[in-house]
């Protein structure tokens, strides 16, 4: 009896052969991304953003900016060029179609509380929970790894991300007014938003 059930299940399994979770062009092309950004864009590390759930147009802007050096990054510039080489639309559609699971990197609740209190100036653009504004390509910060969020704030402060871009003047001025500790608190807060 056990064998019969087993064989039936084998046949059922055979019928779905090839229909695994990698069976789209974007999923296969994105396999190189998973070394750093995790399988299905769910980054396990603290310094790499979670790609799952990124709006396709935001993903494509980020790739274009990394490839051109507007967002300078030793790691991302070559990979962005590879993504463009293989077809950025496939990657963008794949990651955009996945749901972002919040980072597993733990943050200090007290720091997150301080961050929430300090987040008033951020709300103007990123919204009350940091969910961003898709039409303006202002990113959704909620649940991203804290290390990544803090790094971006520091890059803005030092004018190393999109240097000279007039549309980012306000955030850069804001970042110059923040201490490292406040940046850590803000990162903890937005990382912890569920």
């Amino acid at each position, binding site marked *: 009896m056990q064998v019969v059930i087993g064989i039936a299940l084998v046949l059922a399994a055979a019928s779905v052969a090839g229909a695994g979770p990698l069976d789209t062009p974007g999923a296969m092309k994105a396999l190189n991304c998973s070394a750093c950004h995790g399988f299905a864009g769910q980054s*396990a590390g603290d310094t790499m953003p979670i790609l799952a759930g990124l709006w396709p147009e935001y993903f494509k802007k980020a790739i274009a900016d990394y490839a051109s050096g507007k967002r300078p990054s030793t790691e991302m510039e070559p*990979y962005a060029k590879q993504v463009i080489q293989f077809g950025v639309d496939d990657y963008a559609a794949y990651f955009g179609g996945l749901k972002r699971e919040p980072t597993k990197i733990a943050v200090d609740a007290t720091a997150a509380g301080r961050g929430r209190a300090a987040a008033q100036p951020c709300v103007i653009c990123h919204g009350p929970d940091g969910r961003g504004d898709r039409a303006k390509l202002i990113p959704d910060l909620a649940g991203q790894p804290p290390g990544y969020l803090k790094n971006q704030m520091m890059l803005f402060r030092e004018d190393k991300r999109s240097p000279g871009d007039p549309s980012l003047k306000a955030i850069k001025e804001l970042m110059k007014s923040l201490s490292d500790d406040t940046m850590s608190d803000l990162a903890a807060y937005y990382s912890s938003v569920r």
Partner: protein
Amino acid sequence: MARMTRRQFLTTSTVSAGALAVAGLSGCALFRGETDATNRRRVVVIGGGWGGATAAKYVRLADPSIEVVLLEPNSKFVSCPFSNLVLSGARAIGALTFGYGGLGDYGVKVRHEMATAIEPDAKRVRIGDGTLAYDRLIVAPGVDFQVEQVEGLAAAQDTVLHAWKAGPQTVALARQLRAMPDGGVFVLTVPPVAYRCPPGPYERVCQVAWYLKTHKSRAKLIVLDANQNIVSKTALFRAAWQAYPNIEYRASNKVVKVDAAAREVTTDFGDKVKYDVVNLIPPQRAGTIAVQADLVGADKRWCEVNHLTFESVKAPNVHVIGDSTIGLPVPKSGNVANAMGKVAAVAIVHRLNGKQPPELAPGNTCYSWVNDREAIAVVNTYKIENGKVVQIEQKLTPGQSAAVAQNSLGWARSIWNDVVG
């Protein structure tokens, strides 16, 4: 892998749980040399390192109806990346050591046994007295050492350590370094290319030099490099070494002999160098089973492969990935092996389902720590041109920094998860 993703994966592959139960019923019979009673497709993977473990997992992810058996004699995966930091004491070996249990969640059957031979005509692998049939075989045995190239090394391997496969030798070399007298001489030898991890010896130089500078200020580190210059990240390592006046670097000094009793190595010029501790990294070739199965080229060292599928040019239905390969413009790195594992897995699943494999290319992200808190990096990406892997770009960090070191920690956490998580 993150918990959510694993759950998600298991949800998508509930059908295969029954298939696994059946395979369990027939598994023992297969090991007695009988033919496969079911018509399930089976992929066998030899070697559970960065390439093999990744490939095993991704075949299952791509098609859960395919049975995957991974043959790996070691019970634990120990990461070579970051193992140089065990020598300086900046990391513990336990932080680099992982079980293979995570692969079981994907339905990979991990057997801690040694594949002893490959029989490509019969499409089976020999394991001791038994055999295991395959539809596709992935050979990922990493490197083995050409001990015979260094006179006296074969008899001295208990004390003359390579520590070039992370594990007990890493811990033993760290112990030798700690026990070395202040004022002593540590000799580190770099093998001629090609060898596993081009920047690895020079990162190790940094870590040993940092340890000596911090704990044994009168000691010296002599580097005997068989190559004409630092092989990888040359300018960045040169800059980092400015902080270590205790390094004496000698290029084009190939070590050909070791005398453990006299504590002395000899170079190909006949120069003799005394040591208190030696770290002799021998010349390398593809893992022994690849050589024995004649998957290697005329040089008897490395395996040539198809750039799109990693099929051996010498044996049908056999794919070779990772450090054992040659002919692609990629370094022998863990990240590249991981990428090759995915490309090969996708190609195999396509072939087993009668489809044309897509054109995918690897990438390489490679960090080296130059002291206890700063690192440098090189990144390479590739495309496919006329069926061959071609580099798109190589980029180096402008200098060493703590930020790069932080990125390396994120990379490690993520890629270890990708390989065995």
